[in-house]
């Protein structure tokens, strides 16, 4: 909660990790309260039904490609957010980007950073109108100003530090500087 209040955080994506359905559902329900109270949209991974039940703001689709995206868009839009993730090629990115999604996310949600994702995200942001999110688990505050993308998703680089609150605040300052 403290991490989210103060900095301007657009959305909180709740990662499933290796939780089973029940554990994830409980987790989401708790985080919806916290995230929304802090003024962030709360986004669930893949599960449209859970997003609705828990009162989350949208889903982030990583599984099932264009088909799953269409289902999610049909179910949630225009009230909810639908984002496309797990993009492995430029062709995928373009196919997903055409489906009335709210953002296209490049890069893994956690773990190791993907060097190609940066390149892809920059290209996307230069050329297309659908907002690009670069997800960089190793994001560096100093590099934030160089980004062309509309959004930066931070994960391990905040949560695994000893002081997430000040790290998040530093990202916030850098992002505002870049704008």
């Amino acid at each position: 909660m403290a991490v989210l209040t103060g900095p301007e955080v657009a959305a909180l994506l709740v990662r499933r990790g290796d939780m089973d359905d029940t554990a994830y559902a409980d987790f989401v329900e708790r985080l919806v309260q916290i995230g929304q109270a802090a003024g962030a949209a709360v986004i669930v991974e893949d599960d449209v039904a859970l997003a609705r039940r828990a009162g989350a703001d949208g889903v982030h689709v990583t599984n099932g490609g264009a088909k799953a995206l269409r289902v999610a868009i049909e179910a949630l839009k225009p009230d909810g957010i639908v984002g496309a993730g797990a993009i492995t090629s430029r062709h995928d990115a373009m196919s997903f980007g055409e489906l009335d999604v709210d953002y296209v996310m490049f890069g893994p949600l956690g773990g190791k950073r993907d060097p190609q994702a940066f390149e892809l995200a920059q290209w996307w942001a230069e050329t297309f109108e659908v907002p690009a999110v670069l997800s960089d688990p190793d994001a560096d505050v100093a590099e934030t100003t160089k980004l062309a993308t509309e959004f930066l998703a931070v994960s391990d680089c905040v949560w695994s530090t000893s002081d997430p609150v000040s790290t998040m605040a530093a990202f916030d300052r850098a992002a505002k500087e870049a704008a």
Partner: protein
Amino acid sequence: MIRPLRLLAVLAALAPLPTLAQDTPAEQISAEVLGPRAPVDYAFGAFQRGYYLTAFELALPRAEQNDAAAQTLIAEIYAKGLGVPENHERAAGWYQLASRNGDRLATFELGMLYQAGLGVPKSRERSAELFKAASDAGYVPAKYNMALLHVEGIYAEPSLVTAATLMREAADAELPEAQYDYGSMLLEGAGVAPNNAEGARYIELAARQGLTDAQVDFATLLYLGQGVERNVEDAALWYGRAAESGSAVAQNRYAKLLAVGEGIEANLEDAAMWRALARRQGLVDPDLDRLLVSIPRDAGACRRACALLAIDAPQHRNRCHGAKRRAGRGTSSARPGRSRKCAKPGGRPRRGDRCRNGACRTRRASARGTRSPRPLNRNRIWGNKPATHQSSGGARLHASGQRNTPRSLGRMS
């Protein structure tokens, strides 16, 4: 539909096998004389044969691996909707990647998309930057577009001299539009020392490549004997060709030559037909009407011509529709010494089209710059070759068809 294409993809993949076994004597000699063979671009081969989906399938994996030629190929397929729905967003995305990887054609085409606002937000600045880059990389149509931008002087430094230099480079690379425009610049002394003979030569080159406006101008030069030896027969011939291609000005002048039998055997029937066709495009010319008004209304020739075109006899139509296009009138005289009203000092014989109010020289430049549909040529002759390959002529018709009408009408006003 998909099945036969899949099959073709497999065949294409098998094709390289014989060439891999490079040990026939003929192959060896060929390799000695010509050096090692360039690798075959199978995606482009399929593209050339019209197997667009096969080309797409072959190119996609290469494009994902940052192969610029393959990226451009895919962009072209999307830009023109070849076998897939036309999609300018995707085309722009792939052009952008290919452009970054150094493909100058992609840079140029991306510039065209920004120019028109197709698939990307419209931005003349960005398009000018891209044209500059492609032009610096030596891509000829980009040089031509840069020349026009330098004439326009908004998105590139205003400089007729730079424009003329670039235009000349493009003209010497045999781009018909550039030959025509560079010829006109030579005639007018815009950015270069005036030189009628050279000007006429360049305009003739463009005319011979089938550029309608150049044909009209070359005919006029022949008629006036400006920069070339006066030759009314040839003038009539070129007017005739341009008239066939749909130029209203040429139709009008050809009608006149036919009506009075100058440079060509008099033929009132044909004259009436061309007059009618010119009027349909909005070009009304009382001089020509007077030439034809003496034909009795029920004269067989005129009646037949008019019936053919489902119009009423010419003498009744002087005040009909088409009056909107009054501007066209001033452009019509092909006869030297008549209705050439150029007040330019020196009184150099002028081609009527652009010469009004004595502002010949500047008029051309400004008219060019401010008229957006005309400038940047969308000629697919260069546009549709993904790498360095030459494309077939099929595209040419498409391009000239696109260009003719607006351009010739644009010239008149």
